[in-house]
């Protein structure tokens, strides 16, 4: 049973699966394709844009820092060139110069110092008490002596504070001297610190050895990639700005922008989390993914819902079609069997008529005197009578067969169902008494009349009542007959508590010639004639039966008769008076 059910379900299952998969593929594929193509293009162009922007930013700052350093250098150079060592050795004069510088450039210049060739500071102007300091061994001093000018890396120096210096070498009376200026670290640091983009973007400067020249906002290990890579670049690469994307130690992807400053001595590094730098893209991506997800889910949901609905409709229509086909087949079967039956009946009728006539003739002849003495006369007469009886039985059968397909005495008249049923019950009462069966009736009083052929309807109910009586065993039983109105129909119920009908036989009981009665007891035409009559009226016979507990018949008769019945009645009404 389950296997057949599965078999029945499978085409719908398959159809549903096909529908769902096709709808999903057709809807989601373009959605995903378009989304990913656009996102990919957007990502590329957005990356380019961000990188261009960062490159430009760094380039500008490189120029700013370079020009800052250059300006400071040229200020100090001008100062050294325009005054002699003697003048500059005067501390008050030097203080004046520092004041002038500070007035014009702010507190960028922290202090000034004049150092002679031996490394001894001969004059100092500034906040620290560094007078007479000895620089002969300081590295910057060594470097500065060799060159026209020198810009140092940031170092702690004698003061213990981070700073860097610009030193200019001049010659006075064959002797070299050096003018040294300390550049305020905070001012310089600000220059770099102000390169601050987004939440994680910051910049710092490294020297050739990878030491910090400014304070990075976040902790950075300068001995790691890609800083070492940047620092390893050759002379040529030092003019360009480099952009790379790398993962740092903690696994975050960063974007690094590097530019060389101070003729390649320093490296300006800008770094930012990629997620931060491309946050707009990330947001867009998130929105797009959310839309794809929501869209996808709703497409899938809709695909399932719609497919289920469509497949449901189709299966319903199929079921209806199947039922209709069954009905058509059933009706067609009955009709064709009816045609066949009437043909056969008619053909049999004539030979039977001849046989009966021949028997009659023999009977006639037996009346003649010569036979009166015959010892078997009575036997002959009995045999002939039997032939006559059986001939009549044949006639009855053929007439039943014929009425199965033909309209017989089908005069249409107003029929009171209840009155008719009472007559029928009275007719059956004698038989019921012998069969030990009680017939209960429950008729609803206000049933409307129906325009039908009374004799046909009588045939139907007599048949059903007889069947109910036949279904009872020796112990008898009960038959309940009810009449009701249900919508546009009158419903007659005939219920018995007899032996019931086996489920296997239940769908065959309306087939002609189908009978479970012993041979000779039933023609198998009763119910199929009933079926034909009720169908012709536009009604319905429904049977429910359980083996062992009984059978329930429900006959539905439409209150407003069918049109064809009315037209049929015209023909028959014309001959009404002449039919006996």
């Amino acid at each position, binding site marked *: 049973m389950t296997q057949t059910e599965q078999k029945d379900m499978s085409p719908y299952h398959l159809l549903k699966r096909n529908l769902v998969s096709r709808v999903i593929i057709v809807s989601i594929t373009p959605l995903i394709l378009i989304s990913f193509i656009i996102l990919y293009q957007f990502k590329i162009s957005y990356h380019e844009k961000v990188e261009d922007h960062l490159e430009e930013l760094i380039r500008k700052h490189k120029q700013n820092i370079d020009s800052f350093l250059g300006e400071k250098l040229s200020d100090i150079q001008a100062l050294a060139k325009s005054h002699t060592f003697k003048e500059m050795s005067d501390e008050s004069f030097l203080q004046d110069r520092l004041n002038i510088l500070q007035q014009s450039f702010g507190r960028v210049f922290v202090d000034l110092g004049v150092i002679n060739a031996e490394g001894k500071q001969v004059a100092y102007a500034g906040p620290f008490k560094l007078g007479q300091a000895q620089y002969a061994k300081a590295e910057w001093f060594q470097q500065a002596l060799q060159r026209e000018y020198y810009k140092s890396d940031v170092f702690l120096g004698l003061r213990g504070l981070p700073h860097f210096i610009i030193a200019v070498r001049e010659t006075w009376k064959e002797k070299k001297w050096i003018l040294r200026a300390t550049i305020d670290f905070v001012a310089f640091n600000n220059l770099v610190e102000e390169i601050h983009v987004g939440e994680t973007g910051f910049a710092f400067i490294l020297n050739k050895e990878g030491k910090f020249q400014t304070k990075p906002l976040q902790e950075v290990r300068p001995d790691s990639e890609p800083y070492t890579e940047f620092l390893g670049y050759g002379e040529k690469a030092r003019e360009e700005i480099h952009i790379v994307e790398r993962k740092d130690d903690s696994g975050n992807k960063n974007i690094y922008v590097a530019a060389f400053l101070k003729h390649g001595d320093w490296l300006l590094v800008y770094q930012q989390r990629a997620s931060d730098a491309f946050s707009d893209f990330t947001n867009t991506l998130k929105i797009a993914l959310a839309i794809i997800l929501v869209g996808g889910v709703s497409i899938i949901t809709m695909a399932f819902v719609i497919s289920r609905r469509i497949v449901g409709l189709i299966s319903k229509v199929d079921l209806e079609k199947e039922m209709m086909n069954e009905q058509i087949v059933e009706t067609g079967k009955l009709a064709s069997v009816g045609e066949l039956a*009437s043909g056969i009946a008619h053909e049999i009728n*004539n030979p039977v*008529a001849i046989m009966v006539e021949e028997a009659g003739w023999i009977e*006639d002849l037996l009346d003649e005197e010569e036979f009166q003495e015959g010892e078997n006369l009575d036997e002959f007469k009995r045999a002939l009578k039997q032939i006559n009886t059986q001939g009549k039985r044949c*006639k009855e059968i*053929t007439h039943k067969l*014929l009425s199965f397909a*033909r309209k017989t005495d089908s005069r249409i008249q107003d029929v009171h169902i209840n009155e008719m049923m009472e007559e029928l019950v009275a007719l059956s009462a004698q038989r019921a008494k012998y069969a030990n069966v009680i017939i209960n009736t429950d008729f609803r009083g206000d049933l409307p009349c129906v325009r039908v052929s009374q004799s046909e309807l009588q045939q139907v109910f007599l048949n059903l009542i007889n069947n109910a009586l036949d279904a009872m065993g020796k112990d008898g039983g009960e038959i309940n007959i009810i009449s009701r109105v249900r919508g546009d129909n009158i419903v007659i119920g005939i219920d018995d508590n007899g032996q019931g009908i086996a489920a296997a036989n239940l769908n065959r009981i309306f087939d002609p010639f189908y009978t479970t009665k012993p041979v000779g007891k039933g023609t198998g035409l009763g119910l199929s004639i009933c079926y034909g009559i009720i169908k012709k009226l536009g009604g319905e016979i429904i049977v429910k039966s359980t083996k062992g507990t009984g059978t329930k018949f429900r006959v539905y008769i439409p209150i407003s008769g069918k049109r064809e019945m009315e037209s049929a009645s015209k023909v028959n009404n014309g001959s009404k008076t002449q039919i006996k």
Partner: protein
Amino acid sequence: MNAPFVLLVDDEVPFVETMTKRLTKRKLRVIMAFSGQDALEKLDKNRNLDVVILDVKMPGMDGIETLGEIKKSYPLTEVIMLTGHATVESAIEGMKSGAFDYLMKPCDLEELMVKVEEAAKKRRDHEDKIKEAQVKEALSGHGV
């Protein structure tokens, strides 16, 4: 009264023959015909036929058609239709066209006898009335 003079028409030869024997035994004058055409020819030769027993269903010219011809040419002759159950409607149609009555096959012979007697009586009464009328007319004609 003379025994009715009957024409029995059916395509089933054994039926006609046996029926003829039985009717003859019951003092009827019976002649046979085995088709509609045959029946009309026999009628033409035997103008004094009282009753035609006519089967509805016959090959060729059927009972209804034959009935039409009979009523047209020999209006006084009464016709009893014999029918199988299936042709009750045609029998009814036949009665509309002037048949005396109908019987279903196989029929009870006594019933048939009664019908034949009735039909023959009707036919003869009818004939008598016509004769009477003719006599009256002749008398009145002479009287003038």
